[in-house]
């Protein structure tokens, strides 16, 4: 194949791969969320569709697809139909610039574990997420329902307000790394292939950048309309907010958009502050063995429980899962797969940790009042972000 054809083919493969994985993740993220919250509240969660409810997402998808697609009367039809489409496509678009790993060799072809690298990757993500507001706003307005409209106004005002501290929090690590490209961002945090870095190269550990990280996380919670900032869909006030009038797949689209946004901001947090795919310490000191140990341990625990007589219901499923885990652990030991599996593992582990924080917070915190929400953004978060940016800029100017 000549290089240009190869480029198209590889890009197509990557797109399909990322899309498939992302869709699965979206579906299972919801399952994870339900499970985690259930365990926080000391109850089992989904349990009956498949072992431990593992097939629950599949069942949900089938239910949503087969449900009647209801079109309420008196809606503004084109916009009503376009809104969920805008929301979900803008949410998925950001993923295209997220790098999951370094440059790798696949069958002799060099490629990046990233769909495309833009010089203005960070700005691109911001731009796309700012357009995502329209999905919410138009959905609320076109539904011709006062709860939907109020929810949409609330949520778009909230998203615009929190975009400021978010952007300012993003700017500080950008100043340190001196680039807008997401891949270069990771390379300056120890992701340089020439010599691998450590924990201390991450932007999070540069001076007081943990403040910026916290500001970013809070603003990200608000941007994704998650608890404690989910006023747009406060069911005791606004029924279901902007998607009150939506059902079946259009409702699912908003759902997907929310979870895709969560994944995007988590990935952004990892890329900006936590060093992307970089291991906490270099592989020659044994960081490559961490995933092996993790998966092996998980597999052994699963097998032990599966063979235990008290768990009769799981006597097939758990050993199977355990064996799969052991196989994954073995895959991490193979030199052929190690080069791309290890970065992917660290990236997913970090992103997963932040996603877990999202769920954890949802299981723990109550909801803000609306004036508290706005006051918090403008009176506390925004000044802190500005001061953080100014001081960081000063230090960068003095040092660099």
């Amino acid at each position, binding site marked *: 194949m000549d290089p240009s054809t190869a480029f198209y083919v590889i890009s197509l493969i990557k797109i399909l791969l990322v899309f498939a994985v992302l869709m699965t993740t979206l579906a299972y993220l919801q399952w994870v969320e339900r499970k985690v919250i259930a365990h926080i509240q000391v109850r089992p969660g989904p349990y009956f569709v498949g072992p431990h409810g593992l097939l629950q997402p599949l069942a949900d998808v089938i239910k949503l697809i087969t449900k009647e697609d209801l079109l309420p009367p008196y809606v*503004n039809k084109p916009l009503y139909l376009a809104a969920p489409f805008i929301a979900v496509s803008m949410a998925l678009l950001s993923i295209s610039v997220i790098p999951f790993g370094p440059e790798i060799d696949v069958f002799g072809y060099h490629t990046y574990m990233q769909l495309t690298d833009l*010089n*203005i990757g960070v*700005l691109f993500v*911001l*731009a796309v997420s*700012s*357009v995502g507001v*329209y999905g919410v706003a*138009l959905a609320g307005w076109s539904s011709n329902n006062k709860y939907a409209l109020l929810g949409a106004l609330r949520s778009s005002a909230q998203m615009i307000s929190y975009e400021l501290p978010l952007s300012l929090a993003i700017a500080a690590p950008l100043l340190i790394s001196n680039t807008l490209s997401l891949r270069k961002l990771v390379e300056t945090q120890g992701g340089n292939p020439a010599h691998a870095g450590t924990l201390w190269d991450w932007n999070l550990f540069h001076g007081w950048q943990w403040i910026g990280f916290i500001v970013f996380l809070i603003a990200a919670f608000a941007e994704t309309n998650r608890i404690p900032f989910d006023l747009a869909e406060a069911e005791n006030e606004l029924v279901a907010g902007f998607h009150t009038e939506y059902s079946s797949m259009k409702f699912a689209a908003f759902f997907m958009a929310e979870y895709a946004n969560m994944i995007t901001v988590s990935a952004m947090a990892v890329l900006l502050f936590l060093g992307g795919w970089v291991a906490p310490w270099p592989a020659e000191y044994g960081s490559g063995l961490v995933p092996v140990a993790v998966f092996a341990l998980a597999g052994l625990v699963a097998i032990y429980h599966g063979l235990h007589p008290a768990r009769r219901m799981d006597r097939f499923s758990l050993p199977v899962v355990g064996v799969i885990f052991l196989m994954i652990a073995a895959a991490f030991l193979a030199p052929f797969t190690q080069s791309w599996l290890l970065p992917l593992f660290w990236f997913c582990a970090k992103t997963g940790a932040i996603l877990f924080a999202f769920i954890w917070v949802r299981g723990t915190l109550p909801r803000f009042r609306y004036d508290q929400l706005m006051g918090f953004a403008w009176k506390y978060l925004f000044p802190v972000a500005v001061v953080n940016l100014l001081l960081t800029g000063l230090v960068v100017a003095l040092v660099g």
Partner: protein
Amino acid sequence: MDVILFLIFAAIALVAAVNVVVQSHPISSAISLIGVMGSLAVLYLLLGAEFIAAAQVIVYAGAVMVLFLFVIMLLNAGTEARQSKSETAHLLGVPALVVFALLLVYFIHQQPESGVHFGGFTGGSAQAVGRALFTTYLLPFEVTSVLILIAIIGAIVLARKEI
């Protein structure tokens, strides 16, 4: 490739712009305007203005037009009435507008011709714009910040309940 991209997005921009003018409902006009802005952002990328393209989406599409949408939703502006008090605008405006557009196009074609291809100009990166902004155009930049401050205060004063 560049030509195809240009034609696609120029067509989108034109259709959307026509839509802005002919749609009777402000919301539709606003959505069409966002379409114009989005396709213009792509054209900016083609012209090597990557920072401006991103700023176009963030500022125009992401902030200014949301504001418009907000106001339209708040005022619940309906379709406009079919009545006109300005005969001048129609009698004189249409021919003047046609002449205006034709003249512009005519003069543009008087210009020496040159081609545009993607990557022909790479000086529009965030670094280049930022450097120019903080050296050559530092004073306008600072003045602009004052302007923004004035606009904020003005908007707050105007939108207060007492007036």
